């Protein structure tokens, strides 16, 4: 019986994780702003708030290490935001380290076998070094004249913000805005965004006076450098009244004193439309946006991906039911029950429509923005560029392109590996770059966009490009191609040599390129997700890798077959036809079995032998050939039995089976049975290329 506080604890882990990720994003923005030499005090503040929240939660849920870490980190951030310490790159490094340690501490909370204590100790020492003592803000009360009624509803924190702004000689404004309760979230977000460009919003106060039951009036207390006219120009609208709050004498009591008529008339005489002002923040060319684009949390629902999987399963089973409805209606009509058959047919069509809608709906819910992965990559880039003493400018676009959550999970490793390669091998040293007239900082561009039913992800660098000659030489040395064939390779084929397994030489096996994971595994992983990867490169200019992925591991139509006593599914999109197998039509060409199909040669593959799944019971029985195709290449798969067509949901195989080739995943066949889904592209490549390679090797060996 699970303790209800355990469920809350699960939520705690989840929220802590989110806050840590937000903090990380925040630090990245700080990093960018440091480099552009523009500092945004709001960012440090946000980091402070995040850590403060973590501290509170840690205390509540008994996470002592996290609480301790947060407490000290909070002190550091407090000193930073109050300007008592200056933010330098090395201090920022310490902050990034703290984020890493947070991750470990959280993992240790979940699994008591992990121990993060030494890491926390080390972190606390770093904090000490930065010299953030335990003293908190004791700023003297500044001279100000604000309505006590207003002060009474400010929290200590908000009051502190107010004082700080006053100390910095900011002006205070009260914006009175009417909102419809129905659309308040969105309208407020917009208002916030616009107002933030002009200053800091201290607090929001409901005035308690409303025009109607469905609307609400709010006072926004804004501290800004701008003058009233400018603010009215930027933020004025029909539902907004802006007034300045005077510091010395007359005070304005929110909600009770009517604004001076002079001010009011000024407010209403200006045009109702807002002007689009330039954002104060760094220009677009850094690509890294500060975390100002957080979605309104009240509109989202947190869903466990497993629940969605369950729903998808149900939809998959309903698809089977739909198929059955169709065939029953047909049988009815064949047996003379026309009317009944027609009715059932109508039902089937309506069911079909609704089912598709539901399927689309669920698929939509499973979508998450790629930004999740991109943010993680940004941290990695920063880390590696410092380790390698290379300056890297990371430009991210299309972070809000959405893709299935399961695909996103599997993408971070391959992407990380490609970026490591780009930084390590692609981008030249600063010296070299200067020699060839390139900017000191290497640029890595991550771009994502949707194209039809696919999502494209591009990783481009402005480095030295792929050295095709060296690549060919390595391939020959590793016996992947014969030197005589090297000349015949097209440029594209040469570049694709990087995907051959076992090409690693000295440095590539080093720790930076990641435990011997080569581009071949990257390609395999991508194709397991149903995607493909392309390479373009220009010597001296750069390299671009393009990944094409299906938007979702959707329900696909598949052909169910039996080979070696086991059921497999072949996606219909990769099947051109299926026919009875006539053993007499087989001949051997160049060591491979082929048959002639309508005049063309079709290479064959005995699937039972390839997969090593023999079924003695199938011997002597009628067999079939499934003509599988991928692009222009075709392969005839010899199978024991054809079951027929079925809609399936492909689930990816776990990482533990990453080394197994030839499968795109698995699917539920009903009644708890699982069938593996063939990866046609991989099989074709294995069979066709493999034979080619082994022939080459034979030739090479013979001289």
């Amino acid at each position, binding site marked *: 019986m699970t303790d209800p506080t*355990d469920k809350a604890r699960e939520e705690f882990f989840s929220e802590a994780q989110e806050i840590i990720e937000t903090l990380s994003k925040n630090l990245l923005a700080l990093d960018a702003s440091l480099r552009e030499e523009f500092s945004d005090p709001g960012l440090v503040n946000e980091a402070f708030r995040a850590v403060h929240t973590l501290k509170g939660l840690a205390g509540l849920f008994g996470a002592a290490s996290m609480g301790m870490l947060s407490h000290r980190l909070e002190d550091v951030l407090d000193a930073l935001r109050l300007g008592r310490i200056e933010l330098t790159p090395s201090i920022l490094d310490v902050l990034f380290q703290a984020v890493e340690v947070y991750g470990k501490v959280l993992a240790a909370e979940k699994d008591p076998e992990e121990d993060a204590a030494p890491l926390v100790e080390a972190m606390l020492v770093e904090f000490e070094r930065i010299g953030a003592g335990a003293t908190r803000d004791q700023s003297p009360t500044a001279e100000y004249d604000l309505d006590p009624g207003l002060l009474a509803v400010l929290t200590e924190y908000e009051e502190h913000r107010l004082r700080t702004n006053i100390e910095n000689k900011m002006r205070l404004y009260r914006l009175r805005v009417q909102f419809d309760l129905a659309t308040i979230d969105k309208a407020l977000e917009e208002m916030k965004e616009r107002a933030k460009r002009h200053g800091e919003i201290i607090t929001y106060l409901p005035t308690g006076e409303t025009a109607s039951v469905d609307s609400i009036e709010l006072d926004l207390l804004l501290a800004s450098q701008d003058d009233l006219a400018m603010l009215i120009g930027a933020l004025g609208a029909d539902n907004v009244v802006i007034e300045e709050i005077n510091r010395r004498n007359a005070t304005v009591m929110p909600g009770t004193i009517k604004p001076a008529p002079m001010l009011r008339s000024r407010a209403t005489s200006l045009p109702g439309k807002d002007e689009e002002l330039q954002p104060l923040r760094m220009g677009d060319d850094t690509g890294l946006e500060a975390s100002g684009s957080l979605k309104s949390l009240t509109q989202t629902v947190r869903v466990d991906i497993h629940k969605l999987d*369950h729903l998808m399963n149900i939809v998959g089973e309903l698809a089977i039911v739909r198929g059955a409805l169709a065939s029953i209606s047909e049988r009815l009509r064949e047996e003379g029950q026309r009317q009944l058959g027609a009715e059932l047919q109508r039902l089937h069509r309506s069911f079909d429509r609704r089912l598709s809608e539901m399927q689309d709906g669920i698929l939509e819910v499973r979508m998450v923005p790629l930004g999740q992965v991109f943010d993680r990559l940004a941290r990695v880039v920063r880390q590696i560029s410092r380790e390698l003493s290379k300056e890297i400018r990371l430009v991210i676009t299309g972070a809000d392109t959405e893709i299935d959550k399961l695909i996103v999970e599997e993408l971070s490793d391959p992407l990380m590996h490609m970026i490591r390669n780009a930084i390590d091998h692609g981008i030249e040293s600063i010296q070299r770059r200067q020699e060839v007239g390139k900017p000191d900082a290497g640029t890595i561009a991550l771009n994502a966009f949707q194209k039809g039913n696919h999502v494209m992800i591009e990783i481009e660098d402005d480095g030295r490009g792929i050295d095709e000659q060296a690549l060919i030489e390595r391939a020959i040395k590793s016996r992947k191609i014969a030197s005589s064939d090297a000349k015949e390779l097209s440029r594209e084929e040469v570049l694709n040599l990087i995907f051959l397994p076992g090409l690693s030489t000295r440095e590539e096996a080093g720790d930076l390129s990641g435990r011997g994971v080569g581009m071949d595994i990257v390609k395999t992983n991508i194709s397991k997700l149903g995607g493909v990867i392309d390479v373009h490169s220009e010597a001296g200019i750069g390299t671009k890798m393009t990944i094409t992925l299906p938007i979702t591991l959707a329900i696909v139509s598949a052909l169910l077959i039996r080979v070696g006593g086991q059921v497999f599914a072949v996606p219909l999109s990769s099947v051109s036809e299926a026919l009875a197998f006539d053993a007499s039509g087989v001949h051997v060409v160049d060591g491979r079995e082929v048959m002639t199909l309508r005049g063309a040669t079709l290479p064959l593959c005995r699937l039972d032998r390839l997969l090593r799944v023999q079924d003695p019971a199938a011997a002597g029985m009628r067999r079939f050939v499934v003509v599988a195709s991928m692009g222009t290449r075709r392969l005839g798969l010899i199978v024991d039995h054809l079951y027929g067509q079925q809609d399936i949901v492909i689930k990816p195989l776990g990482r533990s089976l990453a080394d*197994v080739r030839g499968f795109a995943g698995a699917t539920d066949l009903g009644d708890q*049975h699982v069938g593996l889904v063939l990866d046609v592209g991989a099989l074709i490549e294995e069979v066709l290329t493999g034979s080619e390679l082994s022939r080459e090797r034979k030739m090479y060996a013979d001289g």
Partner: protein
Amino acid sequence: MAEIVAHSAAGMARRRGTRDFLVFILAGDLYAVGLTRIREILSPPPITPVPRAKPAVIGVCSVRGLLVTVMDLRRRLHVEEQPLTRRARILLVEAQSGEVVGLMVDEVRHVARLADSEIEMATSLLGGDVSEHVIGIGRPVGDVVVLLNLSTIVSA
């Protein structure tokens, strides 16, 4: 059929200087793994073999729609594989990567709470492949239980 194992008690036990272990049988001997990463214990559903997978992989199965790779723990540890009986069970564990993997064992016994004093860490007690997966030996009241390292078992 599944028996859900609660881990909250285990978490609390850790703080008191004891740890909970799930004890099971492989080839007649007692083994155990830390309770915290065990999500569920189930009777083996139909398992589909995966062609060309590593020998220790029995295949994949579906647990309420979730695709799980099932490994034969006896094969993984290179101990004797007796024919599986009705008492065989699959332990669903969470790997470092977050993936849920199933481990097939001959029989599941009980949960043992071991104090640190009852555990003897491995130096090189056993030879062969078993040693890299062994954290130590537990001796709760007269039994001898080999404590296994889940992380190394489900990785690679």
